[in-house]
């Protein structure tokens, strides 16, 4: 497989994930909380592809979801970029990945990402982000993304096989 095919697959994967999140996953709520698929996408991209691809995937899916959120355009993109990059760094420098560690990192990164999103959003003047409900959102989303992480990691590996070169 060439790099061009890999880019095409990645773009297709990101776009499909966005549509599925909008049409399906945002309705699959537990305790009123939906899985944070875009954040899981950014995190798992960092886990599989390293910081650069984590940041790029986070930026792309963040922009996509920002089209549909009432918050400032670019806020999700900013946070997912940083989160994809940071998780990629953690993965490269520290763990080098047993599958269960990747799953746990996804859960922790989801909870952390949501907290940063809420705090930064409030700092930028967005209302109703840092509320009593935030901790429930963090907990449920972390568990949901943990479940989703295994198929997402597999899909990222399909999109960008190891022989095409990674950052590690």
């Amino acid at each position: 497989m060439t790099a061009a095919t890999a880019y095409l697959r990645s773009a297709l994967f990101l776009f499909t994930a966005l549509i599925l999140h909008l049409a399906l996953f945002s309705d699959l709520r537990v305790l009123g909380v939906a899985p944070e698929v875009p954040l899981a996408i950014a995190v798992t991209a960092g886990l599989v592809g390293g910081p650069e691809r984590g940041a790029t995937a986070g930026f792309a899916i963040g922009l996509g979801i920002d089209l549909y959120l009432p918050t400032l355009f670019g806020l999700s993109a900013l946070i997912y970029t940083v989160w994809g990059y940071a998780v990629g760094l953690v993965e490269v420098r520290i763990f080098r990945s047993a599958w269960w560690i990747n799953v746990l990192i996804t859960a922790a990164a989801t909870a952390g990402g949501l907290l940063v999103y809420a705090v930064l959003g409030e700092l930028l003047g967005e209302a109703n982000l840092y509320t009593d409900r935030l901790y429930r959102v963090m907990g449920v989303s972390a568990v949901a993304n943990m479940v989703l992480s295994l198929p997402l990691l597999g899909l990222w590996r399909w999109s960008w096989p190891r022989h095409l070169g990674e950052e590690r």
Partner: protein
Amino acid sequence: MATGTRTGRSRFTLIFLLLSSATLLTLDARDFEPLQRTEETLADLISPLRSGADRLFGPVGDAWAGITGYDELKTENQMLRQELQELEGQKILDSDAVVRLESLLDELGLPYVQDIPNVVGEVVTANVGNFDRYSVQINRGSDDGIRNGMPVVTRGGLVGRIDGDPGRGHSRVTLLTDPGFEVGVLAVGTDDVALASGGGHGEPLMVARGLEIDTEVALGHEVVTSGVDRSRYPPGIPVGTVTGIDFDEARLLQLLTVAPSADTDSLSFVTVLLYDPLAEET
């Protein structure tokens, strides 16, 4: 060496993407029109695919809601049965109440909402994320005459307003439960115009300003939009019913809690009133 080059490149990518995000944030915060148009165009382009996926996966979401909310649905069903029985028994009283409301609205010179041009839209997405519980998207936009700020109603009454510039075929509705939502209201039968604001998800609206302490308001009084002076809402749209009255002795004001008359939790279709207060004035 190769690792160093890759690290340098990934840092460059990170900085580039961060600067891009920050630029977009800044432009959006300043309501930069070309950016907003681009957002709308992109959302419009994705819209058909999304609608198709919605139709495809809608039953899955419904089934999931049925499974996870089974107990809630059962309780709700029981409550609805009970309510239905009560309603059957009180038909006559209800019709009297309607006549009373209509006559009071007549007295106040409030025009009927039905006279205002309107567009019916379907709610295509409620709550895409976990933080936007106070907005929904509908499948009507600027091509249908919808503009920023227009009131959105259902048969139950006011549910919110159009928020931001709509796309050609879609727009966002901010619900009246949003704590930032404010609407001028009056209790039917009184003259005091007060300001009601959203109280949060599942909570009543709060009226904390404008209602003097000696105004006669009772529990169960209907509250409607006031429609005063360039208000973005026409007068007479039902907002809710008074469920609590308190007094602020220091400011000599009454504080009301108002249960919204429209159910914002299960919206399927809404009506956007193509109401422009400036045009109405001229």
